[in-house]
């Protein structure tokens, strides 16, 4: 039956996400049905995904019949196990068929453009999950290491004795890789495939033998390994104790500035008490003074003076070696300032 005019395939019924939303969608896909951590990716996952790519995405068929795809290893029994259902009376595989061989020598990865990896094996926070153990609330930190980049080369060969079949397969592969790379998703981790080379290994030179075409497609997978054994779940800090040491005494005595004049024998004690500084303090008298007057400058209600423990009032005489104790009544939140004026004796 003919296809109606204007027939369209791949109608997108739902809007496709782009940009940041698309990136988030890819991240969500990695976590889908996972236990907060992404699923690991190992070689066998990448191999399985590549086989699926050839079988389901390339899905090459001839005259409506899907061509067998055989992944080959060195074990003979494995080869038989893969091929027996496609063999005939003499147990020979008949063309056309497709084989996949993975080169066993997996190379150091180039999907980070050759940049060096982070040294050591640090793990990085992937997600923080709230936790409640019945007593305390907390958070578990799920951490993963940096993935290990690997380059895996697959050799895909089509064996056929018809040029039209080889053309058709070649066309399909060229169409898939027309935008340089094609992504596969081992365990939902997107990884690019590059078509590196197309070769010909056809057995057509020996005209006295059986002839058939063999076309080789060398495909490079720029993948990475994420070993689930390296994942970590560690509890975050959920309770801290904070110690603060305080002292009852304020080690912040008022400042006394002594100005003396040798010519007229006058002396001025200027007392400056900053906010929150001590209001009661002592000072040793160095010379003999006669204090005559108290000059209050700022924020002082009254001043009590004790000379060797005895209350005194201006004017008074203080001899060298005596201790003058000063008690200031003031607003402690503001700077207080006053002067004791006198003469040298």
């Amino acid at each position, binding site marked *: 039956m003919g296809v109606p005019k204007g027939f369209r395939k791949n109608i997108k019924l739902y809007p496709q996400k782009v940009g940041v939303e698309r990136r988030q969608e890819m991240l969500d896909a990695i976590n889908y049905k996972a236990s907060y951590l992404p699923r690991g990716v190992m070689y*066998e996952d990448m*191999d399985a995904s590549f086989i699926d790519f050839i079988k389901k995405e390339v899905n090459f068929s001839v005259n409506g019949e899907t061509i067998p795809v055989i992944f080959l290893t060195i074990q*003979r029994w494995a*080869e*038989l*196990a893969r091929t*027996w259902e496609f063999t005939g009376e003499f147990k020979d595989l008949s063309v056309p068929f497709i084989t996949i061989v993975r080169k066993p020598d997996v190379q150091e990865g180039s999907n980070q453009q050759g940049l060096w990896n982070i040294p050591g094996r640090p793990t990085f926070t992937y997600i923080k999950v709230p936790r409640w153990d019945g007593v305390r609330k907390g958070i578990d930190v799920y951490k993963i290491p940096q993935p290990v980049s690997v380059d895996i080369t697959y050799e895909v060969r089509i064996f056929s004795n018809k040029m039209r079949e080889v053309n058709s397969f070649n066309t399909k592969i060229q169409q898939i890789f027309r935008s340089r790379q094609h992504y596969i998703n081992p365990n939902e981790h997107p990884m690019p495939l590059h078509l590196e080379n197309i070769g010909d290994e056809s057995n057509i030179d020996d005209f006295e033998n059986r002839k058939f075409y063999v076309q080789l497609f060398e495909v490079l997978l720029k993948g990475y390994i994420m070993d689930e054994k390296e994942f970590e779940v560690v509890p975050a800090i959920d309770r801290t104790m904070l110690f603060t040491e305080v002292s009852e005494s304020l080690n912040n005595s008022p400042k006394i500035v002594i100005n003396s004049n040798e010519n007229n024998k006058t002396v001025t004690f200027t007392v400056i008490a900053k906010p929150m500084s001590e209001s009661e303090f002592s000072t040793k008298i160095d010379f003999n003074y006669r204090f005559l007057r108290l000059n209050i400058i700022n924020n002082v209600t009254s001043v009590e003076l004790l000379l060797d423990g005895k209350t005194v009032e201006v004017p008074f005489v203080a001899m060298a070696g005596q201790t003058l104790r000063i008690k200031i009544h003031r607003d402690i939140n503001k700077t207080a300032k006053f002067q004791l004026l006198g003469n040298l004796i």
Partner: protein
Amino acid sequence: MGQNKVPINRADKFFSGEDFDLEIEMGREYLEGDLNMTVILFRVDRISTETDSIYGETVKDGIRYLPPVEIKCLVNLMEPENKTYNSDGSLRYLQDGQLTLTIYQKHLEELGVDITYGDYIGYQVTESEMRYFSVVNDGIKNYNNSNTILGYKGAYRRILCAPVDKSEFRGF
């Protein structure tokens, strides 16, 4: 409806089906009666064998085989080869030589078995040691001249086997 059959009339002036059968009978009497050389055939059970889901390789001790069958045949075991694991000549080991079996097709038909590529063969080399081999050429196309009697029909099969490691198969 059965398959059409065409009678073989080659060399029928001096050789016939009866002669062919007689030749085989005499040969078997010598091979199975006088020589009495036997090997054990382990046919892999494709259904029960545990294989790796991706690579198709057998898992350790995962090979399940059908009941072993004793087969009378002419055994030709080549000389062991002195080899090394490393290409620089270090880590030497002695690898069993290839095993070639010559078996009358009629013998297999009587036993009701066939030998397939990938099957395993056990050969008792001493009273206590059995060596194992994997079939690499089951010789199923035995209609070449040398496997026929006077070019009449294929009479016997020549089966080529390569040694296998015990991590792959260890029989009994």
